[in-house]
C-alpha cells in the first residue's frame, strides 16, 4: 500500500480526528522521559475503543509497520521512543474505569486510566490500590503494568505485578487473548498476564486489565531519623527488617540530596546529616503503636542523632514532602538529570553507596542518591548538561560503572524503570546469553514480523 493509502486505512478504522500525521504532532511523540535521542514516528493514532485498538494492531502487522504503544510517555528507559517510520498508538483515549468491585475487591480498567485517578476512585469506595510510582499523577495503568512500576510502598505492599490478576491483550494478528481472571486463585493455562508484566509493549497490546484491591490500613505513623553516616542509616534498615518489621515505606536520602532539598524548600532539614531515613509503619492502630516504638528504639540503637515522629497529618505530609522534593530539587540544579535505578540486595546498600561515592569522585561527576532503602532500589541521580560532550562521555562511563557494581553485588539493572532502549545492551550481562536467545526466540514466534516495539528490552538483533 502507498503511504497515503495506509493513512486512509487508519483514518477509516480510528476516525480521521484520531490520526495525526503533521510534522509537529509527530515530533511531539518522538521522545519520552529518558535522556535519549528522539525519533519521529510516521503516524500517531489514538484509538477510543478496544475494537479500534485491536484493528490498529492488526493493520500495523499486515503492513509490517513498527508499533509503539504509548501511555503517558513518562518511562525513563526509552520504551516509547518510536522506531523510525513507525506508528505510535496512544492509549490515553482509552481511560474508562469499567468496574470497581467492592465485594470481591478487584477492578477492571482500560489501559489508559491514570494511576492516581484510579487510586482516588478506589479510595472513595474504601479500598486501596497500593502501587504508587512517583509519576502516578500522570502515568497510565497500562504503562505501569508494561514497566512493572513500583513505588514508595513497594517494600510492604509489593509492586504492580502483585496486583495484576488478569488482562485481555491484542496479539499482532488483532486477536484478543484473555488471561487470568477475577478470582484470587486461577491456574487456567499459562500465566500470560505474568508474561505481559514488564514486557514494555514488545509482546502484546494491553486492553482491559483486572487489578487486585486491598483494604486500606486503619492507622499509620511516619517519622524522620537523622544519621551521622550512611552506614549507620543502612544498618538501621537491615536491623528493622531483621526485627520482623516491614514498614510501609522506608526511604533514604544522602547528604547531597538533603542539602539540595533544603535549598529547594527550606523546610528545616538537618543539612549536616550524612543520611536521613523516612519511615512509615501502618496497619491496625495497636500494631502501629508497637512497631513505631520498636523502630524508634532501633534507630536510636544505631546512632540516630535525631528522631521526629509526625504528630498529625500535616507533619506526616511534611515528612513525605521532603521525599517527594528529592527529584525536583536535584533536577533544578543542572539542565540534565539522569535518574538511574540500579537495585541491590538490602544488605549491600552501604557498599553500593560507597561505590557510588567512588564513581562520582573518580569521574568528577555530581551524583545525588536517594531511594527506596527498604527494597534496595536506589536512585543515583547524575546531574549534568547533555550539551557538554566531554562530561556526557564521563556520565555514560559512570552509568556503565554503576551497573557493573550493582550486578557484581547480586543486584539488578532496574528495580522499576525498565530496560527499554537505555539498558538493553546490559541485559545479557545480568542474565545470560541463553536467556537473551530464549527471549528473542519467544518474541520471534509471537511477533514474527517484529513489529511490537522493536529493539526494546532484547535489543536489535
Amino acid at each position, binding site marked *: 500500500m502507498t503511504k497515503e493509502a495506509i493513512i486512509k486505512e487508519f483514518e477509516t478504522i480510528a476516525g480521521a480526528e484520531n490520526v495525526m500525521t503533521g510534522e509537529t504532532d509527530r515530533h511531539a511523540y518522538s521522545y519520552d522521559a529518558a535522556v535519549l535521542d528522539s525519533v519521529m514516528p510516521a503516524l500517531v493514532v489514538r484509538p477510543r475503543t478496544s475494537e479500534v485498538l485491536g484493528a490498529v494492531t492488526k493493520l500495523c502487522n499486515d503492513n509490517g509497520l513498527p508499533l509503539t504503544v504509548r501511555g*503517558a510517555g513518562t518511562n525513563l528507559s526509552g520504551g516509547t521512543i518510536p522506531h523510525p517510520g513507525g506508528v505510535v498508538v496512544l492509549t490515553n483515549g482509552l481511560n474508562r474505569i469499567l468496574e470497581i468491585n467492592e465485594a470481591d475487591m478487584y477492578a477492571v480498567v482500560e489501559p489508559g486510566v491514570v494511576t492516581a485517578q484510579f487510586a482516588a476512585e478506589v479510595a472513595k469506595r474504601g479500598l486501596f490500590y497500593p502501587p504508587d510510582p512517583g509519576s502516578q499523577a500522570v502515568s497510565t495503568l497500562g504503562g505501569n503494568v508494561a514497566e512493572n512500576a513500583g513505588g514508595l510502598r513497594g517494600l510492604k505492599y509489593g509492586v504492580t505485578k502483585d496486583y495484576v490478576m488478569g488482562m485481555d491483550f491484542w496479539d499482532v494478528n488483532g486477536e484478543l487473548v484473555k488471561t487470568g481472571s477475577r478470582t484470587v486463585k486461577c491456574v487456567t493455562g499459562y500465566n500470560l498476564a505474568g508474561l505481559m508484566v514488564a514486557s514494555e509493549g514488545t509482546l502484546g497490546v494491553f486492553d482491559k486489565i483486572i487489578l487486585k484491591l486491598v483494604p486500606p490500613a486503619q492507622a499509620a505513623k511516619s517519622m524522620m531519623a537523622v544519621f551521622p553516616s550512611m552506614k549507620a542509616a543502612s544498618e538501621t534498615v537491615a536491623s528493622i527488617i531483621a526485627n520482623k518489621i516491614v514498614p510501609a515505606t522506608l526511604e533514604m536520602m544522602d547528604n547531597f540530596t538533603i542539602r539540595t532539598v533544603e535549598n529547594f524548600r527550606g523546610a528545616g532539614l538537618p543539612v549536616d546529616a550524612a543520611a536521613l531515613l523516612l519511615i512509615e509503619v501502618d496497619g491496625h492502630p495497636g500494631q502501629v503503636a508497637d512497631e513505631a516504638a520498636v523502630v524508634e528504639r532501633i534507630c536510636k540503637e544505631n546512632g540516630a542523632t535525631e528522631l521526629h515522629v509526625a504528630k498529625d497529618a500535616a507533619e506526616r505530609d511534611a515528612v513525605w514532602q521532603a521525599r517527594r522534593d528529592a527529584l525536583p530539587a536535584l533536577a533544578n540544579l543542572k539542565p540534565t538529570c539522569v535518574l538511574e535505578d540500579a537495585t541491590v540486595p538490602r544488605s549491600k546498600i552501604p557498599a553500593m553507596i560507597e561505590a557510588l561515592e567512588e564513581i562520582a569522585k573518580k569521574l568528577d561527576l555530581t551524583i545525588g542518591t536517594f531511594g527506596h532503602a527498604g527494597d534496595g532500589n536506589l536512585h543515583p541521580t547524575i546531574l549534568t548538561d547533555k550539551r557538554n560532550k566531554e562530561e556526557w562521555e564521563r556520565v555514560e562511563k559512570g552509568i556503565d560503572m554503576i551497573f557493573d557494581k550493582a550486578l557484581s553485588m547480586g543486584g539488578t539493572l532496574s528495580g522499576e524503570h525498565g530496560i527499554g532502549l537505555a539498558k538493553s545492551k546490559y541485559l545479557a550481562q545480568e542474565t545470560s546469553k541463553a536467556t537473551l536467545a530464549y527471549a528473542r526466540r519467544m518474541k520471534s514466534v509471537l511477533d514474527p514480523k517484529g513489529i511490537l516495539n522493536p529493539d526494546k528490552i532484547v535489543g536489535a538483533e
Partner: protein
Amino acid sequence: MADIHKLAQMLKELDDQLVGCMRCGMCQAVCPIFKLSGKETDVTRGKLALLDGLASEMLTDPEGVNEKLNRCLLCGTCQANCPSGVSVMDIFLKARAIMTGYFGLSPAKKAIFRGLLKNPKLFNALTEMGAKFQGIFTKKVDDMLGSSCARFNAPIIADRHFNTLASKPFRKIVPEMDTPAGSSGLRVAFYVGCVIDKIYPQVGEAILKVLKHHGVGVYMPSGQACCGIPVLSSGDTSTFDTLVGMNVDILKEGEFDYLVTGCASCTSTIKELWPHMYKGDSSRTYDIGVLARKTMDISQFLVDVLKVEPKELAGGRSVTYHDPCHLKNSLGITAQPRTLIKAAGCDFKEMTDAGTCCGCGGSFNIAHYELSREIGSRKADNIIASKAKVAATSCPACMLQITDMLSQKGADMSVRHVIELYADSL
C-alpha cells in the same frame, strides 16, 4: 519573512532555558488544555519540544509550531507545578515575540495594538462610542474589541453571554485622584486596568470606597494605559515597551507606599513582566523595579498590610471563590481573598478545584472559544456544585468568563469581585 534558518538562530536564545525541561511529563497532570485534548502538542512538554525542534532545525513547519504554541492559556499552572523549575511563561512569551518577529503581526492586531492601545485617548473614545451604540453596531464594535485587548472578550460569537461595556466607564465617574494619607498613614497608587475601567467600573468604585474607609490616601493619575499583557502574549514587544513606558512615566510622578490593583492579570504583569520583559528606554529600569516591588493585589494589601481580619460570626450570603491563575500561579496569593470574603461576613464555601483555570486566558478565549468554553464549563459546574449564592474572584477577566459560563447554564448566581463584597459590608 526571514528564512527558517534565521528563525532557528533566534530561538537558540531560548536554548539555556529549554534544556531545563527534563521531559518528565508531569505537566500533563495540570494543564487544562491537555486535560481536554490529551494531545502532547497541547501540553508544556510538547510545546517546549517543538521549540527545541525548531531551534535545532529538526522541524520545517514554523506555522505548525506557532499554531500549537498559541493553544495555551498562559495560565502558568504548568510552571507552578514543574518539578524541574522550568520558566515556562518566560519561554512562551519570548517565543511568541520571536514568532511574531518572524511572521509579523497580523494587520488587525497591528492596527489595534499600535493604533489604539498606544493611544489611550482614542481607545477610550472608541469604546465609549461602542458603549453607546453597542445595541446597534454590535458587530463593528465587537470586531474591534474582540481582538483589541486580550482581556476584552467582548462578543464576537453570537451565543456568548457577555457583559456589555459600562455605560459610564470608571474614568468618567472618577477621572483622577490625589488624596493625602488618612488614619492609616498610608498612600497607595491605584492602577485601574482596562476591564475595570470599561466593563466593571463598580469594582473601581468599591476599591476607592474601601481605601477611604481605611483612611488610605489615593494617587490615581489620569491617562493610564493598558498594562501590556495582551500585546505581550501576542508577541508585540515593541508596543509592550511603549505601554509600560507610558504607565511608568505617570505613575512615578506620585508618592505612595504601595501600588494596588483589582486585576490579577495587571498585578502579575506589573510585578513580574514589567521588570522582566521591558526592553525599552533603560532610564526607566529603576522606576519599573520600584513600582514592581510596591505592587500588590488589593486583597493582599488589605489583609497583609492593613490587617483586615475575618469576622467571627459569618453567616451572611454564601460565597465561593475562584483563584485567578495570575494570582495563584504567578504570585502565590490564595489566602488573602478568602480572608477578605470572611471579613465581609460571608459564609465561605470552598469549591472543588478552585485553583484551576477558568479557561479565559485572554485572547485564547477569542481564538479558541470552544476549548475555552469547555474548560469554563467545568469551572461553572464546580461553582454551581458548591451551592454558594455568589461566585467571587479577584480578576475582572475571570469575572467575564465565569459570567458567560454560568449564564449559559442558567445558574441563578451573581458574579462579584471580592472587593465588592467587602465594600458592601462596610
